[in-house]
C-alpha cells in the first residue's frame, strides 16, 4: 500500500505533521476496490483510522459478515438478507408479536429472539440483560442507519460478534480500566476508591452496551468502528478518558451514587474530543495496529 502509485507521496508525512484523515478515504477506496475484499486489511484500517461516513455501513457489514468479501455476490446476499428480514417480520406479525405500532427497536429485539430461539412465549415477558443490551444497541443503530434491514442485520451481527468475541473478556474490562486509570491518574483512582465508587461505575452502559445511548451518535460510531474491527479494549479507554475528562467534576464528589449519577449523564458537548483522546490513549497503550500489507 505504501508503494501504491495512486496515493499521494505526501500522505506518509501527513500523520507526522499532525494531519489526520487526509488520505484515509482514498486508501479506503483503494481497499474497497479489491474484488475479494481483504477483511484483514479492512480490520486494520478501521482500527487505525476513523472510517469515512459514506463507507462506514459497507465496511461494518463486511466486517460483521453481513456481506461476503466477494462483491459479486453482494446483490444476492443482500437479497437473502432482505427476504430473511421480511420473513422474520412476517412471522412476527403473524404471531402478533409485532404490530404496526411496535417500535422498530422492539421489532429488532423480537426478530433477534426469534432467530436465536429465545422468543418468549408472551410478548409481555420481562427482558433479560441481553435483551436490554440489544435494545440499547438497536436504538443507537437505528439512529445511525437509514435502512431497517441494515439496522437489524448490523444489530444482530454486532451483538452476536460482541457476545462471541468479547463475551469472555467483558468481566475483565473493569479491572483493566482500574489498571490504566492507575497509570494515567492515580489520584483519581484513589479518590474513586476512597468513595468506593469504582465498583459502582456504570460498567453496564460502558462495556455491555458499548456506550450505546450514552454517547452521541457521531462519537459512538467512532468507538464502534474499533469494536467492530475487533477491539473491545477501546471501551476501556473511552471510559478512562471520560473519567479523566471529568476529573475536575468528579474530584469534589464524595458519594458513589452521585458519581455514578453524574457519569451516567455526562454532558454531550465535547464527546468527539473525548473519543479522539481515548483513541490516542488506546493507540498509546495498545499500539497502533500495523498494516499487514
Amino acid at each position, binding site marked *: 500500500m505504501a508503494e501504491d502509485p495512486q496515493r499521494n507521496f505526501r500522505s506518509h508525512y501527513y500523520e507526522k505533521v499532525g494531519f489526520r484523515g487526509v488520505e484515509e478515504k482514498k486508501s479506503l477506496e483503494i481497499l474497497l476496490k479489491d474484488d475479494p475484499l481483504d477483511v484483514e486489511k479492512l480490520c486494520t484500517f478501521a482500527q487505525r483510522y476513523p472510517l469515512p461516513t459514506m463507507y462506514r455501513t459497507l465496511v461494518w457489514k463486511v466486517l460483521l459478515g453481513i456481506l461476503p468479501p466477494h462483491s459479486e455476490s453482494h446483490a*444476492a*446476499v443482500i437479497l*437473502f438478507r432482505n427476504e*430473511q428480514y421480511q*420473513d422474520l417480520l412476517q412471522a412476527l406479525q403473524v404471531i402478533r408479536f409485532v404490530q404496526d405500532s411496535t417500535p422498530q427497536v422492539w421489532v429488532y429485539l423480537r426478530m433477534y429472539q*426469534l432467530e436465536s430461539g429465545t422468543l418468549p412465549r408472551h410478548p409481555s415477558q420481562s427482558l433479560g440483560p441481553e435483551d436490554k443490551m440489544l435494545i440499547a444497541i438497536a436504538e443507537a443503530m437505528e439512529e445511525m442507519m437509514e435502512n431497517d434491514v441494515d439496522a437489524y442485520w448490523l444489530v444482530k451481527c454486532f451483538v452476536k460478534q460482541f457476545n462471541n468475541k468479547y463475551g469472555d473478556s467483558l468481566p475483565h474490562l473493569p479491572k483493566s480500566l482500574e489498571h490504566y486509570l492507575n497509570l494515567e491518574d492515580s489520584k483519581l483512582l484513589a479518590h474513586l476508591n476512597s468513595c468506593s465508587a469504582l465498583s459502582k461505575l456504570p460498567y453496564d452502559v460502558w462495556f455491555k452496551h458499548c456506550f450505546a445511548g450514552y454517547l452521541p451518535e457521531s462519537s459512538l460510531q467512532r468507538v464502534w468502528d474499533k469494536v467492530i474491527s475487533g477491539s473491545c479494549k477501546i471501551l476501556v479507554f473511552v471510559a478512562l478518558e471520560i473519567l479523566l475528562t471529568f476529573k475536575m467534576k468528579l474530584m469534589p464528589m464524595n458519594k458513589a451514587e452521585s458519581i455514578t449519577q453524574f457519569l451516567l449523564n455526562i454532558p454531550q458537548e465535547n464527546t468527539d474530543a473525548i473519543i479522539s483522546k481515548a483513541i490516542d490513549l488506546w493507540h498509546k497503550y495498545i499500539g497502533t495496529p500495523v498494516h499487514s500489507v
Partner: protein
Amino acid sequence: MTQPVNVSDLVLLLESTNLQMYEGVKGLVVDHLRSDRGPLLVNAIVDHYLENDSLPAVQILSAVQEPHDKHLLDRLNECMGKAATRLSAVTLLGHVIRREPTWIHKLFRAPVLVSLLKCLKTETEVVFLTTGVLVLIILLPMIPQAGKQYLLDFFEIFGRLAAWNLQNPGKVPDVYLIHLHASVYALFHRLYGMYPCNFVSYLRSHYSLKENVEIFEEVVKPMLEHVRIHPELVTGTKDYELDPIKWKRFETHDIVIECAKVSLDPKEASCEEGYTVMPKHFSTHSQQKHIDHSSSPFSESQSSIGSASATCTPRTTFSSLPGSQTQCRTLTSQRLPSEGLQDVLWSPSLSCGLSTPPSSRGLSPTSHETSQSASCLPPRVHSTPVGGKGQSTEPTTISPPLPCPAVGNELCSNLVTAAPSRKDGKLETGKPLKRQEHVTSGDKGATDSPCKWKDLETENAKTVSLKELPEVIKGLNLQEYGTEKENEEAAIADELSEITSLKSLVIRGGFDSPFQHTTEMLTGSQIKREQEFVYSATEQELHPELHQVPFIVDKAQELRTNKKGFVPIEKPNDSYSGSIKQEVIKAESTSLELHVPSPLFKVQALRPSTLGTRHPLPYEHLFELTLPKAASLFVKQKTTELQKLTGKQLEDPPSSLISPLDVLDKLIQQGGDAHVKELSRVYPGQPEPHIQRKMVRLPLPSKSADWTHFGGSAPMDELHTLRNQLILLHNQLLYERYKREQHAVRNRRLLRKILKATALEEQNLAMKDQLKLQELDIGSLKHSLIVEQDQYQQLRKEKESIIVHLNNQIAELQKDRDSYRASCQELQNKLQDCQKTIGELKLELQKANNKACNTAYLLNQMTEKFTSTQSVQQQMEWLNKQLLLLSEMNKMHMEKLIHSQMGSAQAMETEMVQATLIREKEKMRNRIQQQVQRMEASQRRIIELESQLNKKEHLLMEQKKYLENVKNMACGELQAAESRYEAQKCITQTLQTEILELYSMLEQTGPPDKMPTAENTAQSVEERSENVISESINISDAENKNQQAKPPVIPSTSTDRSPNRKAQPPPLVTELMDQSQDAPSICLAQPTTPVTVGSYPSSKSFLGMRARELFRNKSESQCDSERPKMDSLLDSLKAECHVELGSSLGPLKLQVPVEVPGPESVRQLNIMDYDETHDQN
C-alpha cells in the same frame, strides 16, 4: 438721549462767529451723529441748511456716515418734493456727493434719485435744472450701474434740456440759458462718454423726428462736433454698456477721464494719451485754415493798405457769409447777443475764434526757452521766444499784421494800442505784439535776431517750398509797411519760415494745395467767423483795447517777472491810461508772484477803465486764432497756475474756444466785469455811453431798464437774477472743482505710473548692463570655445592618424588570420581524411574482431568436436583393441582351426560361425544406433511433455484458486442462505408452537365439536405431543417445497441429488393431520442438502457448468494446438516400435532392452488433459 433737543438747538449755534464755540458745537454735533442712529439730528441739520444755507451744516452733512445716509437721503427726497426747498436740496445733494461718501453706491437705489430725475424732467426753474444737471453729471460716474435703470430718464432729461435752449419754455433769461447749456453740454459729454451706443441710438431715434430736427441742427449737432467717435460705438453694444460688470472695473475718475477722452473740446477733453494726436491733427487743420484765411486777406490787404475801409471790406464780405452760416450755431450766437444779429444768437465771430484752435500742450518748454533766451539776449529775446512759439503756430506771424493795419488805420495814435488790445486776455497774444513793439521800437537787430534764430533752427528746416511762402510774405509785408515795419515784417517772415520749416510735415500739404479747397465745413465756418470777428473787432476799435488793459497789466506783470524786456509795453499803457498804469504798479507792488489778478483785482483794474468789457474778446479770439495751439496751451497752463495761486476762487477761463464752456467762461468774465462796472458805476456814479452800449448788449433781463441810471437800488428782479446767476456760477465752479479733483486723483495715479515706469526704465538699464556683461562673458566663452575647438581638431587628427595606423595593423592581422585559416582548413581536411581512414580501420578492426570471435567460436566448436572425436577415437581404440583381441582370438581360433583343420568340416563350421558372428555384430551395431536415436527422440518427447505438464499444473493451480474463490463466494452466499434457513427454521418452529398453542387453546376454551371418546382424547394428546416434533419437520419440508418454486438456486442442486423427493407430494398444512402418521419416515428422508462442492466440476451441476466454461476459455486454445503435435509424436513412436519389433530378430546378446510405449502409455499421457478425455468420452 436727553440731548437731541439740545443738539438740535446746537445746530443753530453752528452759525456762531466765535471760532472756538463753532468748533465745539461742530465737535458735539459730529459726536452725537456718531453715537446716535436716529434721523432727528440729521433732519435738524438739513432743515438748518435749508433755512440758512449754512456752510458748517454742509460740512457736517457731507461727512455724514453710514447709518445716517438713509435719513439724509430720505430727508432730501422730502425736500425735493417741495418746490420751495428743491433747489437747496439739490445743492446739498451736490455738496454731499462731491465728497464721494462711502455709501454713494446706495444712491442709485434711493428714492431721491428718482425724484431728482422726475424734477429734472418737469421743472422749469433754470437754476434748479442747471444745478440738478450738474449734480447728475457728477453723480453719473459714481453710479454707472444706475444707467441700466434710468438711462432713458437721463436721455429724456438731455433731450428736454437740449430743446430748452431753442424753445425756452420758462422764458428765462439768456444768462441762465448759457449756464444751462453749459451743463447740458457737460451732460452730453458724460452721456456720450459713458453710454455711447445707447446715447447715439437715442439721438438717432429722438432727432429723426421732424419737430426735433431743428433742435438737432441747433443744439446737438454742434455738440457732436466736439466729440470724436467713441470707440465703443465700434466695439461695444448697448447691453455691454449697461453691464454692471463692465463698470466695476472703473473708478469714478476713470470714467470721468474716459468721457473726457472722447471729447475734442479742450475744456472737456483729457490731456491724456490718445488725445494729443487727434487735437494736433485738428489743430493743424485749423492752422491751415488760419493760414489760408490770414494769407488771403493779407494778399488783399496788399492792394489796399492804407485805407481802413479797404481792410474792412474784405472782412465784411466774409462776415456776410459766416453770418448766415453761423446762425445755426446757437452756442456761439448766444454768446454775443451784442452782435445784434438776433437777441438769442450771438455773432459767431467770437465763438468762431474761440472754438477753432483746440488747446494744445507742450508750450511750457517753449516758454521756458523764451525765458532762457531772454535772459541771454535781452533785446532779441523777444524775437526768439516768439519764434519758439511760432513753431507751433504760423498764424501768429500773420495775425499781427492783420490787426496792425486795422489799428494803425483806425487809431492813428500808434501801434502800441493794438498791442495791448491783442495782449488782453492772453499772454501769448501779447507776446508777439511785444515783440513787434520791440522790433518797432528800433531794435536794429530785429532782422538779425530772427536770422540768428533761424540759423539755429534751420537745421531742422528741410523744405524750401515752405520757406518760399514766408519770403513772399516778407516781401509783401515790406512793401506794405515800409521801412518802419520792414524789420518787423522781416522778423515775422523769418519766424514764419522757421515755423513752416518746423511744421513742414503738417503744413506742407496746406501750402501746396489751395487753402480754400481744404476747408471743411466746421473750420470754414469758423474761419468766417473769425473774419467776422475781426470785422466786429474793427468796428469796435476802442473797446477791446481798453477792455484788455487789465489783462495787459497781468501779462505785463507776468512777463516782467519772467523777462526783463517787457518794459516797453508799459509805456503804451501809461500813455493810454494812468489808471491802468496805477493798477499795474499796484499789482507790481503787491508781489511779483501775483501774476493773475484775483477777481477783486480784476475788478479794481477794470473799474477805472471806461471801455466795454466784452469788446476785447474779438481780438482775443483773433489772437487765439493766430496762435491756436501754443496759445491755448499756454493759456491752459497759466490758468492752472493761476488757479493754484488764487486757490478756489473763480476760475479765470481765458480760453477763447467756442465750446459752451468757453461761452460760459466768457459770460462769466463779462458778467463779472459788467457787474463790477455796474457797481462801480453805482458807486462812483459815472455812467458812460460806451458802457450803456455794453449794458444793452448784456443778457441781463433788465437791459432795457436802465435802473443804474437812476441811482436807485436795483430792482428785486435784477437782484434775484444776479443772485441766481451767482448760484449758477457757484454750481459751475463746484462742478469744475469736482472735475479738477477727479483730475487730481487721476494725476496722482499717473504720477505713480510714471514713477513705476522710471523704475522699470532703471531696471531696464540695469538689465542692459547685465546683458552687456553677459555678452562679454559670451564673447570670452566663444573665444575659449574656439580654442577648445582647435584642440579638439588636433586631437581628432591625432586620433585619425592612430586609427589609420591601427587599421593597417588590423589589415595585416587579417591577412595573417586568413593564411592561418587556410592552413587550418587544410589541416582539418587532413584530419577528416585521417578520421575517415580511422573509421575504415575501425570497421576493419571490427570485422577482424568478428572474425576472431567467429574463429574463437569455431575453435570452441572444434575443441568440442575434437573432444568428441577423441572420445570417439578412444572408443575406436577400445574397439580396435577389441577388434585386435577379437582378431587375435580369431587368429587363435584360426590357428586352432588350422590346427583343427585337419578336419575341413570343422573349418567350415568355424568359418560359418565367423560369418554369422560378423553379421551378428553388425546387426548389433545397427541396433545400437537405433537405440540411441530412439533415446534421443524419447528424451525430447519427455522434455516436451514435462513443459506441458508444467503448464497444466499451472492451469490447475489457477483453476484451483478460482475454484477456491468461487467456493468462498458460494460459501458466503451459502452462509447467508443457511442463516436464512436457520431463521426459517426458527420461524416455523415458533409458528408451530404458536399454532399448537392456538390449538390447545381452541380445544381447551372452545366447546369440543365432536367429542370422540375419552380414550381418543388421551390419544390425541399423545399424538399432539408427537406432532409437535414431527410437524415442525414437516413444515420445514413444506417450506422447502415452497421455496423450490421461488428461488431456483438451492433447489437446483438439491433436486438432482434427491430425485426421490420429487415423487413426494408437497405436504400442505391442511394435510398435516393426515400425514402425521408418516412423519417419521419423512423425517428420515429429510435431505440434509449436502451440497457436494466437488473438486471435479460435473457438467451437470450448475457450478460445474460455470467452472467448465471458465476453464475452457483458459485452456482450450492450448490444448487444441498441442493435440496434433502429440498425435504425430505418438505415431512416430508407434512406427519405431514396429520397426524395432520387426528388427529384433537379431542376436539378443547385443540387444538393449527397450520399453516400447504402448497405446496405454500414450493414453496415460493424455490423461492429464481430462478435457480431451471428456471429449473422447
